[in-house]
């Protein structure tokens, strides 16, 4: 028990030390980013609501130039807006993804709808602040309801989320249809909330976005350690006295802000994509939370710009879906080409492993040949090995060629690799012999370990050892050797080649 506590304190100490370093490393680039974003915001505060596409009638390259030169205020507004949205949603979404709550974003984005409608009713105009307050209230209420339903009924999280999502949305649909049936309803523009149009962002919206982004980044930096602990080990967070519930609602409030301010640019359905997809792509690339946050923010911003740009190029396509497809392409790239968890890496790694195992199996057979001759012979011909391995000459020859190519063996008769015959002779090089001894040692040690330490029958251990011999490394071998007191013979009475004996 005491050891356990000690361990815990140790972990906690490491934790806070690590975080101080991480915080400084996260802080600097973020602040710089924030400063430049605000500069952009100030420049573009005169933004007009207009479809970005309408401005352009020139060639492709010129349009691209126009876009990135940020000449037109509407372009500036759209670019800045999508950047901020990507940044905000990417960072906050990371916490959802690691907590396996990804679809809470979807729930939130639907649940804010009645709030949007009520905010609109407040003074019968598209006043961003009234809508913002109404929507935030509705969102937080929705999240609280999900938690409450989950706690007090037998219904699982997914049903609770589905009910809140659909129930609130139904209420919202009712309210909006009522508003649209009222006389002043026609120009309400509430439909913008469903699909979004980045070019329609007003300067008020941009300010709201900028403020939300900066509030959330500041709060994330302040409570980084707490959010981190809460995301990965909620029991630990509670045990060290963090106000877990308050933090949860703080995060949810931030998320609601982000969802509400993004709604107009990307629409109800697709906000959740911006929360999930960039963060998931980042999750495929790194194991560290602070890197994940940075990557997710970068991916979010990249897909935002990509979406705004393609929307600009393609004249009148809605921005939201294009941003989503931008982030999906980033995700797909990370899924396939990710250096650590990518599919391609996995396939290559598996291929390399299979090749290594094949080489090691050949080496082992050569060891057996040598052992059968009482370790007197060193040169063998291919037909002998084929007999030992129970396969035809052609495939055996291929295996030997692989050994030669890996510089583990050499052809005795000729150095060139021209015509080989069944009589062609080969010899293991020193490195090859070492490796062969290691594999045989791993195999026999494991057999002995299973019979002696795990009480297996000695005729049941071969298959298991056949697998494990390729996988265990020197440290495990050493521990087994210590445990078995440096044994000499395996359960079948054969020699276990020791490290210092491996010279031959």
């Amino acid at each position, binding site marked *: 028990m005491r050891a356990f506590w000690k361990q815990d304190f140790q972990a906690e100490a490491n934790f806070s030390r690590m975080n101080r370093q991480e915080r400084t490393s996260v802080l600097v680039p973020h602040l710089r980013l924030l400063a430049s974003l605000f500069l952009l915001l100030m420049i573009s505060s005169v933004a007009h609501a207009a479809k970005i596409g309408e401005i352009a009638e020139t060639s492709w390259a010129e349009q691209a130039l126009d876009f990135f030169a940020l000449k037109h205020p509407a372009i500036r507004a759209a670019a800045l807006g999508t950047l901020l949205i990507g940044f905000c949603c990417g960072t906050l979404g990371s916490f959802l*993804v690691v907590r*396996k*709550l*990804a*679809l809470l974003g*979807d729930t939130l984005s*639907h649940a804010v709808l009645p709030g949007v409608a009520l905010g609109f*009713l407040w003074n*019968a105009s598209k006043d961003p602040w009234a809508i913002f307050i109404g929507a935030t209230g509705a969102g937080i209420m929705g999240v609280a309801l999900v938690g409450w339903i989950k706690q007090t*009924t*037998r*219904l*699982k999280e*997914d*049903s609770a*989320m*589905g*009910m809140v*999502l*659909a*129930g609130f*949305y*139904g*209420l*919202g*649909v*009712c*309210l909006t*249809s*009522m*508003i649209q049936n*009222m*006389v002043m309803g026609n120009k309400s523009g509430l*439909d913008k909330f*469903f*699909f979004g149009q980045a070019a329609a962002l007003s300067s008020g919206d941009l300010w709201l976005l900028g403020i939300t982004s900066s509030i959330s980044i500041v709060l994330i930096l302040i409570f980084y350690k707490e959010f981190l602990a809460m995301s990965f080990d909620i029991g630990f967070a509670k045990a060290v006295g963090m106000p877990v519930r308050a933090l949860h609602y703080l995060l949810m409030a931030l998320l609601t802000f982000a969802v509400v301010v993004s709604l107009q640019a990307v629409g109800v*359905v*697709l906000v*959740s*994509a911006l*929360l*999930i*997809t960039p*963060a*998931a792509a980042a*999750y*495929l690339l790194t194991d560290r939370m602070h890197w994940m946050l940075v990557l997710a923010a970068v991916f979010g911003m990249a897909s935002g710009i990509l979406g705004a740009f393609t929307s600009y190029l393609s004249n*009148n*396509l*809605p921005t*939201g*879906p*294009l941003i*989503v*497809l931008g982030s*999906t392409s980033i*995700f797909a790239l990370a899924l396939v080409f990710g250096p650590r*968890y990518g*599919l391609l890496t*996995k396939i290559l790694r598996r291929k390399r492993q299979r090749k290594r195992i094949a080489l090691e199996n050949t080496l082992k057979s050569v060891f057996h040949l040598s052992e059968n001759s009482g370790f007197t012979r060193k040169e063998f011909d291919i037909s002998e090995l084929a007999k030992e391995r129970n396969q035809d000459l052609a495939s055996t020859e291929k295996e030997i060629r692989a050994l030669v190519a890996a510089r583990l063996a050499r052809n005795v008769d000729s150095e060139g690799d021209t015509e080989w015959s069944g009589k062609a002779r080969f010899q293991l090089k020193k490195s090859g012999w070492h490796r062969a001894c290691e594999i045989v040692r791993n195999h026999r040690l494991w057999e002995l370990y299973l019979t002696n330490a795990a009480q297996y029958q000695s005729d049941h251990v071969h298959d298991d050892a056949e697998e494990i011999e390729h996988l265990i490394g020197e440290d495990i071998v050493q521990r087994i050797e210590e445990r078995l007191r440096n044994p000499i013979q395996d359960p079948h009475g054969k020699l276990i080649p020791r490290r210092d004996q491996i010279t031959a």
Partner: protein
Amino acid sequence: MQREKLIPEFDWHTVLVQPWSEYASNSLWIVLMGFLVSGTCGLVGCFVILRRMALVGDAISHSLLPGITLAFLLTHSRDTLPMMIGAIAAGALTVALIEAIRFSSRIKADAAIGIVFSSLFAVGVILISVFADKVDLDAECVLYGELGFIPLQEVAYFGDQAIGPKPVVRMAVIAVIAIVLLIAFYKEMLVTSFDAGLAASLGISPARYHYGLTLFLSIVIVSSFESVGVVLVIAMIIFPGATALLLTDRLSTALWISTALSAFYAIFGFHLATWLNASIAGGMTVIAGVLFGFVWMASPNQGLIVQYRRRQSNNNENLEPFNQEL
């Protein structure tokens, strides 16, 4: 400019009597369609909830959009068959992509669902905007649907006998199929939903029933979305089952209760919408939500009130020995 009131006066006559005296046939079709949609969704929904697939249903309902849009672009018709095929293909693609992402990477199910459905939905919206002049669909009609238009739909004929609006007839057929399938595979669905291991040991393949349910779910969703819209289909799938499961421990009873609830939603939702001059599907969802809230509070075995009382009496009992000692 004159501003009407948001909530009109509740007038007994216009809300409750007039629909049935003056527009009886229209009201009948609307309520019947509402009942068929929510009843069928509710039956499927009980299993969906038990299998924790609620959000898969949400995903499928969104990703149907590119499926039906493509079907429409290829066949230039709004016939049932191509739409169904498009929808089923989209549903299958959704499930396949979700599973593929889950099994090939460290991404968990929830994030995979979110990524897949939002991307497919985005593809659908873009398809519709690119081919806006050729597509007679708009994304909003898919999102909302409108039950009120049901009586205006083309009428289906059986021989020369007019039966009713086409969507209603189609939904009725689906409902009958659902009931037949339910009776035929009740035992298998029961076992696979509660104990996949037991099912496998009895020789019932859980995977086969899982995919079967998913397939049927996409069929039900595609035939419902026209009238209640993509998101509210989810309400009709989850609410009846979830409410019923708070009232009973038996699946067969839950199925009956969910059907009764669906009738309730259809009738009261219709009247609520008439009163407030709002979307009928929205009204049904609001009724469903209110009813769930009520059952959640007052359910005889699992309600909040009972839970509270039980906790109180527990506390008293636990204190009893101490009180006596004192």
